[in-house]
């Protein structure tokens, strides 16, 4: 019983900002323990049998909960998903009902996602991810032509966005909008498109000769970072969200995968310096490139900065690909979490969506970086990859 309380307190320490030098030190040590090593919050789930149970288990598992017997649980979740979702959450130690809800309208899945969100908010005091969306690249045969899709974050309800029957790549959401940026080869060149999901209309944002890819919108949506090769090498460029005001930010020879810091001040990207692959950052307004210390993790690429600013997730390219997370301030060295590539943060800054290879087909998966618990999403096509979590 004591252990359970201790582990919960540890998570609390990691997520609640403490003040004072002494407290700061404690917090950093705990964060090291937390990445990939935190104990999940034990809950007992009872009374749910169908799709509702499936949704609750998925949503809670990838946000740091585990399912145990009532004896071992800290919280009891009791309810029903017969026809519609209803349930209560009881704190077993305080002997107190914390949450009591019944839902109607929409689909059963949506009701269950909403209940999961309310459970997360009640127990973790954090907004849940149950109703969020992802965009991704879908390829029926694992290579060649594909289309851009969106779906619920667990892969259910996939909707095709493009009908290009061409190579497509790297969707990214326009922050706070029903709109995507992505790369399509439909005009015989990799060009970057802006595609409004509300009107269905799209336009080319970057259609220069050579490579136009890896669009990433700034957190305020005003600017786009991307990779262009029009200068004769692969570099990071920025422009306005409408494609105007293009500016070259880097002059390296192997720059790829730009992402933004949540304050919009920095662009983090993968590059090669002195014959070694590195992660680096450059001020969004331009300036000197600063390398990031990935502490011995070789061949880092595909960085993604968490919305709370604390973490940078990235892919380690070795024989296989691995998802790694380190603190953005460099104080917590990278932790190798699971096999996979293309990590993209959820709005909660603790869950990642990524893809991994199963039998030469890519499958999307959702990972809680603190407990290292992950679950595969429902498949849309033969091979789903390059997910981007809507924020």
């Amino acid at each position: 019983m004591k252990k359970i309380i201790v582990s919960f307190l540890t998570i609390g320490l990691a997520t609640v900002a403490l003040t004072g030098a002494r407290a700061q030190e404690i917090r950093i040590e705990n964060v090291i323990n937390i990445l990939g090593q935190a104990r999940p919050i034990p809950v007992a789930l009872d009374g749910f049998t169908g799709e509702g149970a499936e949704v609750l288990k998925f949503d809670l598992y990838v946000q740091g909960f585990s399912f145990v017997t009532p004896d071992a649980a800290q919280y009891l979740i009791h309810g029903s998903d017969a026809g519609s979702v209803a349930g209560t959450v009881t704190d077993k130690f305080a002997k107190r009902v914390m949450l009591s809800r019944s839902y109607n309208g929409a689909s059963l899945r949506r009701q269950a996602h909403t209940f999961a969100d309310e459970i997360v908010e009640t127990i973790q005091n954090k907004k849940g991810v149950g109703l969020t969306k992802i965009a991704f690249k879908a390829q029926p045969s694992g290579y060649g032509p594909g289309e851009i899709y969106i779906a619920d974050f667990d892969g259910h309800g996939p909707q095709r966005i493009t009908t290009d029957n061409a190579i497509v790549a790297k969707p990214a959401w326009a922050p706070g909008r029903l709109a995507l940026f992505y790369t399509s080869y439909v005009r015989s060149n990799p060009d970057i498109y802006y595609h409004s999901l509300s009107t269905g209309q799209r336009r080319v944002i970057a259609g220069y000769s050579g490579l136009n890819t890896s669009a990433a919108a700034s957190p305020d949506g005003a600017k786009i970072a991307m990779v262009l090769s029009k200068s004769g090498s692969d570099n990071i460029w920025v422009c306005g969200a409408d494609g105007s005001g293009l500016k070259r930010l880097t002059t390296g020879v192997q720059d790829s995968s730009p992402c933004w810091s949540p304050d919009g001040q920095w662009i983090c990207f993968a590059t090669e310096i002195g014959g070694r692959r590195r992660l680096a950052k450059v001020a969004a307004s331009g300036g000197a490139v600063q390398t990031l210390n990935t502490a011995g993790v070789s061949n880092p690429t595909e960085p993604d900065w968490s919305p709370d600013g604390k973490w940078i997730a990235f892919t380690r390219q070795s024989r296989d690909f691995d998802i790694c997370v380190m603190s953005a301030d460099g104080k917590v060295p990278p932790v190798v979490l699971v096999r996979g590539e293309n990590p993209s943060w959820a709005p909660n800054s603790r869950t990642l969506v990524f893809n991994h290879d199963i039998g030469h087909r890519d499958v999307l998966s959702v990972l809680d970086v603190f407990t290292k618990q992950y679950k595969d999403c429902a498949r849309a096509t033969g091979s789903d990859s390059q997910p981007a979590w809507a924020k």
Partner: protein
Amino acid sequence: MKLNQIVFPLVLALVASLAVTGCKKGPVKTTIIPGHNTSIVGPGNGPETVPPGGVIPGGEGPGGVDRGPGGGPLVDNRTEFDKMTRDPAALAPYTVHFAFDSAVVLNKEQANIASVAQALTSSPGDKLFIEGNCDERGTQEYNRALGERRALALREALVKNGIDPERIRTISYGKDKPEDPGHDEAAWAKNRRGVFILLHPKAGV
């Protein structure tokens, strides 16, 4: 924690030494791509009114996703290339292969480069598409960039053989267009390649 305190300064020192010694190569010579100042941009659709908020509101997601073809007409010199007739067979014997994770044009490929340069020299009206491709190792976007570097390296090699860079366009397919979809070294070796597509002026143009 203690270990980190020891390791961090060491790593930092290593990084610093790399930064000092790592720039022996000097600047890499690059040739600007034709049409580099013109983005091929379709007509804008005006400002949008979309409700803000990270979570897509309403039901099971946005409805009415229109799948119309995007963009407008091509307007820069990419058009000149797109209007020509592709002749993939003409230069197929001169496909160039690369070492793993490298965009360096190997010496043994110089004969192929010379043959492609010869074909372009003898037909001044023709242009060239260079397709850069990768094996499946490496992530998708890393490979998309690597494929572009391979195509650009071949373009540089042709420029050294006297070909006008304005006659050459590059395209990277990353690992999305394998020659052999197998998963062994033999397939990978075939897939790490630069393909030359000769473009002829359309008859009557």
